[in-house]
């Protein structure tokens, strides 16, 4: 073979190599990216993501694993680690990027005992088995907490909150989102929503305080006959439906029913917990668990 025959082969090979380089240098947008952070126990993790799903789960390692995908490649994820603090945030590099393009999905694995700070606009947030204080600030994102324990503060505009087997203290504030607490072992509940519904199906712990308030939705509370709590339920324009056999409240000053709306005061068993239910025009239901 003479040298002239080699030229096309060499050009072809060079082209293939260059194409390989170009492919390697291009961001593989939909690819999953991972970052590991070595932490001590009880790290503080902050996540700020405007759009996209955020899943947080726990493991037994002293390490935070942050994995994300951004399908469009137009969103940049920035991470910062300082001491026992890890911060993750997204931003877009150019103007005019749509919400869909800036959407970034996160899977974050943290030590069981971790403090969480999550701020997002849209996209659902799920947290599993993390024990530590948590704050969530969302606009439309729904939030699902499962088997978590700590002081949880939730602020959302129309996102809903589902709390499965949550322990500790819960403060939640929403305008049109629903709040559900299923099998909770919470000793402090302060939940407020305007047009959303509130559902509580769990135990009222001794010394616990449970305040649930809405404007127009339904408040539904389930109890067992062995529960021990004082109740004060008032709906200004709606009904109060009660299946409990309350006796008059013997704690504190005697209650006088307001001349406005429907009220119910009473004590079940010793009245160890305190339950306050309030609605403007919604229905309050105090139902016996099957």
């Amino acid at each position, binding site marked *: 073979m003479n040298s002239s025959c080699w030229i096309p082969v060499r050009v072809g090979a060079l082209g293939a190599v260059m194409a390989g380089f170009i492919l390697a240098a291009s961001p593989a947008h939909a690819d999953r990216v991972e970052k590991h952070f070595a932490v001590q126990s009880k790290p503080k993790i902050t996540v700020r993501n405007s759009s996209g799903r955020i899943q947080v789960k726990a493991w037994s390692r002293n390490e935070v694993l942050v994995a994300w995908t951004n399908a469009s490649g137009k969103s940049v994820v920035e991470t910062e680690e300082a001491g026992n603090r890890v911060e993750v945030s997204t931003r877009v590099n150019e103007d005019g990027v749509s919400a869909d393009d800036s959407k970034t999905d996160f899977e974050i694995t943290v030590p069981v005992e971790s403090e969480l700070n999550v701020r997002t606009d849209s996209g659902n947030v799920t947290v599993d088995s993390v024990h530590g204080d948590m704050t969530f600030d969302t606009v439309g994102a729904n939030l699902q907490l499962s088997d978590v324990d700590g002081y949880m503060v939730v602020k959302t*505009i129309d996102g809903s909150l589902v709390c499965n087997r949550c322990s500790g203290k819960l403060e939640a504030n929403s*305008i049109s989102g629903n709040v559900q607490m299923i099998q909770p072992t919470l000793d402090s509940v302060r939940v407020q929503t305007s047009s959303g519904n509130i559902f509580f199906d769990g135990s009222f712990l001794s010394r616990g305080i449970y305040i649930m308030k809405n404007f127009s939705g339904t408040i539904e509370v389930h109890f067992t006959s062995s529960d021990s709590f004082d109740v004060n339920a008032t709906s*200004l324009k709606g009904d109060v439906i009660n299946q409990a056999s309350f006796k008059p409240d013997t704690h504190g000053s005697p209650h006088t029913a307001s001349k*406005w709306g429907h009220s119910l005061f009473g004590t079940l068993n010793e009245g160890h917990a305190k339950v306050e239910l309030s609605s403007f025009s919604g229905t309050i239901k105090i139902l016996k668990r099957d």
Partner: protein
Amino acid sequence: MQCEQFERILEQQDDGALPKPALDHVEACEACRALSTDFYSIHDMALELGAEGIAPPERVWISLRNQLEAERLIHGAQAAPVASAQTSPGWWAVFQRPAVAGAFLGLVLAAASAVGYLSNFAQTAVQSQWVAPQQETSPVPSADSVFKEEVLTVGNDSIPGLQRQDTAVTDSIRRNLRIVDNFIAICEKSVREQPDNQMAREYLYGAYQQKAELLATATNRSMTGGLQ
């Protein structure tokens, strides 16, 4: 001198110079020197902000004035509190600072609340049969609606990155503003009909508070084109 003592002196001193022991301490202590520098920076910035004469858009004042006149809380052709000539050319840049915007939001909401309460109070006091003009039929947009529009469009043309704002988020904020406004209207009606209904008053107060928080969230999201 200990750092704690220095901090107390720093807090208590007005505009005068620090006493000599404090000056000696600040020379020797790096942390207190940094604290002192920050303190003076904040102080100077506060003075600058005050000197800039921050003013909201004229149409907000005009609208507020019209609303007050319409509700007969003020009379006659009073001059708008802020004329355009008085508006500092740099006010918009200042307004873009979330803290200042938040304060502005608070002021306007407080004004709106005061208008509502004063209106209710006046109506209750004189047992007047006069009915406030319906917003739908009024040729003048209410201060509230102007302000709402202001908040939701703030910086649309001037803040880079706003275009990427999620329309679902904007829709959500608008939808929830309508919900809260509706609650405010219902609560106000209840309070007017039952002035001694404390629970209705509490709900009205809560709805105003919720609206303030919602507007603050809207401003914050608009200001930053998303999250900050």
